[in-house]
């Protein structure tokens, strides 16, 4: 146990934990949105994230021609390149998530298939995507170019307020706020909440169920795509199975916060990011996963539905 690092690096661990946690949160929102509506876990979401990371690399390296060895960009070209990467990742992930819904869920739902069938078909899509990318890339890791020079706003008690970290934190907060507002305030958001409360009643009210479900998958894809963009911006690398560990972490975050609950996914991700950082620092990196799952089991023992409990769509928060 090394508690001295907590005193000297407390602010740094918090900052890094928040940044990592918010990436988890964005992916967790993908899981929770789908669960909120269908009461099913979209296991392909981790591969949607993986495809998002490769999309960012494709845009930056192939489309923009920014090789790994090139110097960072500056000014408007940088802003446009980052915006294009973010939009492309979100767009591709949203489209892929909608495709997953059509392929793995819609037909089975229409035929009234067992929920487990949808679960297995989602796992099938996940394996298909992961293995396709493994073959396509020879399982090799891919480095991302450094578009954004990692300058710092300054240091505070060991915490380095780097541009990439701060961008990920603030953009994630904005995305979360926009999503909350959309789900709670918009007509489509209300439709999503209505479907999550009762599919039958929603149909009676004239809500197009397929449209709402597809939209929900698309929103999950959008947040997951944003997570992929921030992941590449900070860590600058990806590999065909990058989604596995992050997907497990995000799924854990969603469960920790209360699956189906937007606030739960958000704060669950934050809690997980911070727990991982402090567990690694105090106990050691080899105990990180063990600590996280001990915390998860402990929380679920006390509150089986997660920290924030039932679905936010039902509580209209």
């Amino acid at each position, binding site marked *: 146990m090394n508690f*001295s690092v907590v005193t000297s690096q407390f602010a740094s661990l918090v900052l890094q934990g928040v940044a990592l946690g918010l990436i988890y949160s964005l992916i967790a929102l993908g899981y929770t949105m789908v669960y909120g509506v269908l009461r099913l876990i979209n296991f392909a979401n981790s591969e949607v994230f993986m495809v998002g990371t490769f999309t960012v690399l494709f845009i930056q390296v192939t489309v923009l021609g920014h090789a790994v060895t090139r110097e960072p960009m500056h000014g408007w070209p940088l802003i446009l390149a980052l915006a294009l990467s973010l939009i492309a990742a979100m767009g591709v992930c949203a489209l892929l998530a909608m495709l997953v819904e059509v392929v793995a869920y819609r037909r089975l739902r229409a035929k009234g298939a067992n929920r487990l069938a949808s679960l297995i078909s989602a796992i099938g899509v996940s394996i298909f995507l992961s293995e396709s990318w493994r073959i396509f890339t020879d*399982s090799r890791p891919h480095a991302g170019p*450094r578009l954004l020079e990692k300058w710092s706003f300054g240091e505070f008690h*060991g915490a*380095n307020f780097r541009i990439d970290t701060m961008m990920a934190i603030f953009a994630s907060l904005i995305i979360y706020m926009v999503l909350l507002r959309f789900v709670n305030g918009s007509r489509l958001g209300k439709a999503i909440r209505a479907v999550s409360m009762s599919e039958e009643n929603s149909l009676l009210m004239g809500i197009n169920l397929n449209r709402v479900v597809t939209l929900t998958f698309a929103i999950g894809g959008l947040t997951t795509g944003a997570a992929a963009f921030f992941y590449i911006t900070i860590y600058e690398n990806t590999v065909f199975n990058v989604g596995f*560990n992050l997907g497990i972490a995000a799924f854990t975050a969603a469960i920790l916060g209360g699956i189906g609950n937007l606030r739960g996914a958000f704060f669950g991700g934050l809690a997980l990011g911070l727990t991982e*950082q402090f567990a*690694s620092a105090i106990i050691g990196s080899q105990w990180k996963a063990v600590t996280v799952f001990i915390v998860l089991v402990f929380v679920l023992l006390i509150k089986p539905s997660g920290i924030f409990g039932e679905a936010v769509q039902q509580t209209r928060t």
Partner: protein
Amino acid sequence: MNKNLKRVLAVAIASGLALGTVGTTQASAKKKVRTVTLAFQGPLTGPDAQLGQDQLPGALFAIAEYNAKNPKRQVLLVKADSQCDGTVAANLAPGVANDKKIVGVIGTSCSGEARNSFPAYIAAGLPMVSPSATAVGLTDPKAADRGFPIFHRVLANDKFQAPALVKVGAKGVTSPKFYIVDDQTTYGAGLAEYAKPHAKKAGSIAGTESVPKGTADYSSVTSKIKASGANIVLYAGYTADAAKFFKSLRDGGYKGVIAAGDGVNTSDFPSLVGSAGEGVRLVAPDVPFDLLVSAEKLAAFTKTTGVKIPGLYVTSTYDAANVFLSCFDKKKYNRPGIQNCITNGTFDGVSGSKIKFDRYGDIIGGAPVGEFLVKDGVIGYIGIA
């Protein structure tokens, strides 16, 4: 796989088939061309693929030389892609062991995959000569999972690499304060363990950390290293993780020395790590092939393999292949004969040294450990560490 290597393999296979066809058609008239098969086992895909891809040309070149000299006895090479992953190796090894045509394994590249392949290869009596598996336990008489009697390696093990790593890391550093990080693999954990006493002797150890292979976020380790005041980070692991870790260190503001073992010394390291790799010091129990051979031989290597600059461990892979090929020269074509030949024989290394194995498979008299430096995005050889 790079295009050149694909082309070479295609040519090799086509030549093999053509030779086989010629041999078959002429069988009635003349003596048939006989074949003998070796396997190369290492990572050819996966996160550590470059390690195997760098080595493979060494084996292909040695075999091409042998085949040119022995038109009636052609050596074929089977590729066993174990991805530097012990689990993959454990599943793959029984298939290689059961293929009776395979009389020897050039490999494995990584220590973990060697250890997990031993049960199948020992049971089948299939001899191995590794060009790069350096974990001490593989040849440790006291280790329960050693590779005795079938495992051999043509390079120095981590008992030699670890002090070299410490020495190279501490070079020019006043009051060395080490932080030793490993990736929890058979190779990484072992190298880190052997580095510790040498680091203590050279200065002090500010901390140690074991970060599982495949970890995405190294920021907490970076924070710990910064808080510890360490001025040298020693990393024992493989390229893909090293690239992520070193980026995190430099982006996190760490300004001290970074040094790593041979697992990181692959030709794709500079491109994966980017600018964070500048100045990284590397070691490996290897001397680059291009420094040991004549210009003519290097030209022949390039012509055969399509590789202009030989990567790390081409030398040792060439030597490992030649151990088997020397046994073929002595008319040993089956597993027991080759095993006996390797155990009792003395072989010529490309550097001019003699290769002879001790009872447990280590090279007698040791072998040099080289020092390397990443400069301007290229790994350059400095000299013997």
